């Protein structure tokens, strides 16, 4: 099996044909020819952009089947991945269900706008039992700023438990509530504090071991990526290299291990055509790492969340608020919507199976 894979021609990879053409013309006939290169070398040798080189290497190492899949099958596969709700329904709708598993999502915003609060909310929401439409998963929270406060996590956990207990309609859900308590929620959040970028890199090297020991892990939060990397201000090219390596690792962790990776980023001021603008920190190259970028910002006294980058969703802006219970809709009216998995309520999905376990 291994031998067959190693002799796989580049032309069979699921990449754009012009990219494949460039690779083949540069002498990369088989996947093994380019497997051990890093993106910079590959882009230099083949005359392709770094982004394309990255894509090619990922396709080469992924080992996924290359048989053509129908769009419906792809949709069904994506369904299995599920989403992590934010508890702010307009935002969940705009995201197509919530923060997606298998992708890297970045939350940017000015200090105090609610990035850590949303991360804590996701750390609780990922644990919502499957019978309520959640993932029943665990979370690794990497804190680089010292913003993780257990007190606050307890508040959010209590509110989520209360919310779900109000929604419990049948026996199965009631049984699930016995294991969805503040204590179990706290026990499923693993915290690591990294004081600088080297400790962060070390933690990510050990991530694969951690993931293999914990198959239930569905969320990795890094709050924030900006803080340790912004402190490297003497060698910017090293910073860029390290961030590139980091982004590769995060994308690989998300796709290969079926977890949602959520990172937070600071805002920085930039001069654009003689007026000052705010932009996410860490530069444009880092901007390619997340599939989805959420921007949280203030507008007078309102808090707004915008999706500013996402391949699958339209750019949208919704209002949210942060209450003592956590991240919520702007108009907080207690409407207990049914939290059944979508497959049961969606009439048009008659061909989809019930994916509840």
């Amino acid at each position, binding site marked *: 099996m291994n031998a067959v894979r190693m002799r796989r021609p580049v032309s069979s990879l699921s990449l754009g044909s012009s990219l494949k053409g460039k690779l083949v013309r540069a002498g990369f006939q088989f996947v093994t020819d380019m497997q*051990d*290169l*890093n993106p910079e*070398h590959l882009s230099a040798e083949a005359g392709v952009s770094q982004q394309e080189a990255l894509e090619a290497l990922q396709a080469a190492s992924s080992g996924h089947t290359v048989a053509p899949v129908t769009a419906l099958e792809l949709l069904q596969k994506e369904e299995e991945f599920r989403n992590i709700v934010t508890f702010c329904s307009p935002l969940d709708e705009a995201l197509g269900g919530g923060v997606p598993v298998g992708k890297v999502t970045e939350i940017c915003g*000015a*200090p*105090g*706008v609610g990035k*850590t*609060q949303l991360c804590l909310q996701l750390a609780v929401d990922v644990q919502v039992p499957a019978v309520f439409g959640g993932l029943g998963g665990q979370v*690794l*929270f990497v804190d680089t*700023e*010292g*913003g*993780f*406060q*257990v*007190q*606050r*996590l*307890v508040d959010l956990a209590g509110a989520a438990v209360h919310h779900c207990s109000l929604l419990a309609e049948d026996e199965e859900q009631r049984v699930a509530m016995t294991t969805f308590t503040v*204590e179990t929620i*706290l*026990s*499923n*959040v*693993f*915290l*690591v*504090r990294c*004081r600088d970028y*080297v*400790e962060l*890199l*070390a*933690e990510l*090297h*050990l991530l694969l071991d*951690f993931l293999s020991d914990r198959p239930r892990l569905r969320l990795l939060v890094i709050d924030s990526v*900006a*803080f340790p990397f*912004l*402190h490297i*201000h003497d060698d910017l090219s*090293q910073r860029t290299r*390290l961030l590139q*390596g980091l982004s590769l690792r995060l994308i690989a962790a998300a796709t290969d291990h079926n977890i949602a990776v959520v990172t937070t980023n*600071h*805002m*920085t*001021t930039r001069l654009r055509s003689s007026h000052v603008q*705010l932009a996410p*920190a860490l530069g444009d190259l880092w901007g390619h790492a997340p599939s989805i970028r959420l921007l949280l*910002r*203030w507008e*007078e*006294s309102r808090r707004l969340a915008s999706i500013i980058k996402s391949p699958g969703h339209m750019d949208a802006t919704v209002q949210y608020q*942060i209450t*003592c219970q956590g991240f919520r809709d702007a108009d907080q009216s207690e409407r207990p919507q049914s939290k059944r998995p979508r497959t049961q309520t969606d009439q048009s999905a008659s061909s989809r199976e019930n994916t509840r376990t």
Partner: protein
Amino acid sequence: MNWDQLQLKPRIISAVQRAHLKSFREVLVFSEPDLQKMTGLSRPDVQELLHAAATACRTRQPITALQLQRGECRRLESGLRLGTGCPVLDQLLRGGLPVGGVTELAGESGAGKTQLGLQLCLSVQYPVEHGGLSAGALYICTEDPFPIRRLQQLISEQTSLRSDVPPSLIGRLRFSDNIYLEHAADLDSLQVCLSRRAALLLAQGRVRLVVVDSVAALFRCEFQPGDWLERNKQLLTVSSMVHHLSHEFTTPVVCINQVTDVFHQPESSSSSPSSSVSPALGLAWANQVTVRLMMRRLQVTVSRGDQSSALRRLEVVFAPHLARSSRDVAVWREGLRGVLDPVLAPFGPDVAQQEMVLPLPLGSV
């Protein structure tokens, strides 16, 4: 760096030594292909090396939030808070300042920031059960001289401020002995002070609070408007030092900051929407701060007995565990006290009512 500690294969160790890699941290900074080139090791060997270096670099295993809450890890967020000495303000802060992280206290001159800084230098000396951390404080002045007389006044009035603590305990504390004063006129001396004096005092356990009064002063005069990049670099260096101290020694660091006028509402209005001033040093500094508090003077005066005080408002602008809220504060002889009734009328019939509302010190009218 003793590579033998890592229990790696001898060929890996010798390759690493030949490549002049001196520490675990150095190894982690390179990518896999780069390490392969530098050491000539195979991919599996490099991965083993990185894995061993990462394990050595890791200060502790991931722990669960449940273990944290139960206090099983003293070094990490232990839920400890540094009380302010006033129950109303402690309630605003849900116990007090968090011990890990940098708290910024911003406000106009005369707002009362130094007053609160001094009060914290005293409250930190009380035992943990009374909201302190059983250690002293390091107070770093950067512009105005240290208000020694005010400190002495606060010390002599501690029994009236801290009516919750037995006077015998207060009598035993040698307050002024445990407050270390430093003066830093410029950035270099601040950096030296933080990296040497502060680190030493913290390591010896003599001090568990560092106050920098103020950060803004150092950055404003030293830089020309065009030196923006250099200023940001210095800001980040100072921030990185205070954060490092705070996490290394589980110590609250309070940075007092000034404010600048705001002429238009910036997109990132992290200051209160109602105010026309914003903490100095901009977004680059704001991103570095864990808890942001602002103090401002109100147009209202309160009176109590023979004392009167302009009322201030202490506001939580942002904090990871606190909602945006504020409390009114009065500055008395014995220190800052939060006021329970929000807005008060100036002198008039309400004064008598106000006297009832304030927590009156023992023995006074």
